[in-house]
């Protein structure tokens, strides 16, 4: 018999509705799984003391009538996002001991629909930089090889999902912090369209680039989670799951990664195979040349560092000694930026966004790489300075377009991720293509050894 902790969200939801499984039993199984595996992966930093009570309330909601697909299902939340009554430290000594009074807006929606907020998962300090081995919580480890990093900043979210501790975790993404750990750990990460999910109650890194979204074991589960958290009138991300993708035109942005010497041969091969697979599924693949990546990265970096320093100005004045060294050093970079620089970066942002949408003319989606190589080993980090790993993510924080990272292969036993990018509001197309790709390959079925 399948361990309830291994049931997908649709499978578990069906059993919860039929009465063959209770949320209490499911939550107990997930708690047991966390207890068994967390000592290796350090994904969770806190387990909710009331998890089984939440499950009982969900069982009552289910008995009274199904309020939604996530009712009764355990969800982990990045420790940058407030969950009432649970620690909210943003992975930092600066906020050590802080307990959230209220739920973040996205969490309000999950709780109202009966999700079990089972605990908090690790984040790079204030979502800025990591891993930092000097912080109170040990960094999360890559379930495929615990000697390697998870990527970040949604490090615990990715480790928890990829390690099979939970099926779904919530993260944040300012420059790739959902998508890159998803790629490195071999799970799905969905950065939604800007403002589709409220950021209220998440500690800001860079308010004009921050996004909140799901990391999940499969595309369908990520889509269901996004639909549960979405604010406003959007087409459901899950609406086209299972539908053919034969009418879709995909722009393959191969030169964005293949022309970079940092891209590994395995990564290039995996992306080419992904394009071939999607072509065999009937999608029309066209090689395109997207605008140069460098100005996107430059404008986003300027905005990010200026806004991050502004967010931390008061905390730095009072608590500088409590920050980890890499985080404080990165925050200090922002002192090199003036208001005039930020104004120009914002001006460039408008033009760069228009340029990206123009480059998509005639296509429905972009296919490219998420990161250019697999996860680095911890030994690459000396605890002093940050190590930047090459990726192709921050452009879409700048443009606000939705972007999905999903498993696309392996290199030396470590996962590689592809990225699908759509126009604003087109998460349904991303998820339709991602789901079709998942079904046509075994990348998402493979799991690290338990």
């Amino acid at each position, binding site marked *: 018999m399948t361990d309830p902790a291994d049931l997908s969200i649709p499978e578990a939801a069906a059993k919860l509705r039929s009465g063959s499984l209770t949320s209490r039993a499911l939550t107990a199984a997930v708690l047991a799984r966390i207890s068994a595996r967390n000592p290796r992966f350090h994904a969770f930093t806190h387990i909710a003391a009331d998890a089984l009570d939440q499950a009982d309330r969900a069982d009552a909601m289910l008995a009274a009538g199904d309020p939604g697909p996530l009712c009764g299902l355990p969800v982990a939340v990045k420790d940058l996002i407030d969950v009432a009554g649970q620690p909210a430290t943003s992975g930092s000594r600066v906020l050590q001991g802080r307990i959230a009074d209220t739920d973040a807006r996205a969490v309000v929606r999950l709780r109202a629909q009966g999700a079990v907020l089972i605990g908090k998962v690790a984040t790079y300090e204030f979502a800025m930089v990591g891993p930092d081995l000097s912080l109170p919580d040990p960094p999360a480890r890559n379930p495929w090889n615990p000697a390697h990093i998870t990527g970040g900043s949604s490090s615990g979210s990715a480790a928890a999902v990829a390690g099979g501790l939970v099926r779904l975790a919530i993260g944040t993404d300012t420059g790739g912090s959902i998508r890159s750990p998803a790629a490195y750990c071999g799970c799905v990460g969905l950065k939604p369209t800007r403002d589709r999910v409220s950021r209220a109650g998440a500690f800001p890194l860079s308010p004009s680039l921050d996004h909140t979204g799901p990391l999940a074991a499969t595309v369908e589960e990520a889509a269901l989670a996004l639909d549960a958290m979405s604010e406003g009138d959007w087409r459901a991300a899950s609406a086209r799951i299972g539908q053919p993708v034969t009418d879709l035109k995909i722009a393959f942005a191969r030169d964005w990664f293949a022309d970079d010497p940092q891209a590994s041969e395995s990564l290039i091969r995996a992306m080419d195979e992904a394009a071939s697979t999607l072509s065999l599924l009937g999608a029309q693949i066209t090689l395109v040349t997207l605008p140069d990546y460098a100005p996107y990265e430059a404008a986003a*970096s*300027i905005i990010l560092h200026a806004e991050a320093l502004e967010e931390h100005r008061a905390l*730095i004045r009072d608590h500088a000694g409590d920050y980890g060294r890499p985080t404080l050093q990165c925050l*200090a*970079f922002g002192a090199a*930026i003036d208001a005039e620089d930020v104004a120009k970066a914002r001006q*460039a942002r408008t033009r760069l966004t228009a340029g990206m949408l123009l480059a998509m003319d005639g296509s429905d989606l972009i296919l490219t790489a998420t990161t250019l190589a697999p996860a680095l080993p911890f030994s690459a980090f000396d605890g002093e300075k940050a190590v930047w790993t090459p990726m192709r993510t921050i452009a879409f924080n700048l443009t606000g377009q939705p972007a999905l990272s999903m498993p696309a292969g392996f290199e030396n036993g470590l996962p590689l991720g592809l990225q699908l990018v759509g126009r604003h509001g087109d998460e349904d197309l991303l998820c339709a293509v991602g789901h079709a790709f998942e079904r046509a390959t075994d990348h998402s079925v493979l799991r690290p050894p338990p």
Partner: protein
Amino acid sequence: MTADFTEAEFRARLAALGLTLDARAFAIAWAGARHLRAEVAKVDAYLAS
């Protein structure tokens, strides 16, 4: 800001923030600051193109 942003100016700005870094941390922060100034130059070039 002029293109020749100096180490002394960066130190002054950190001091204004109340931020004192030891020598190793300052060296890393200064390298990051110079990198960001290079990013500013890229944006300037993009807007001028």
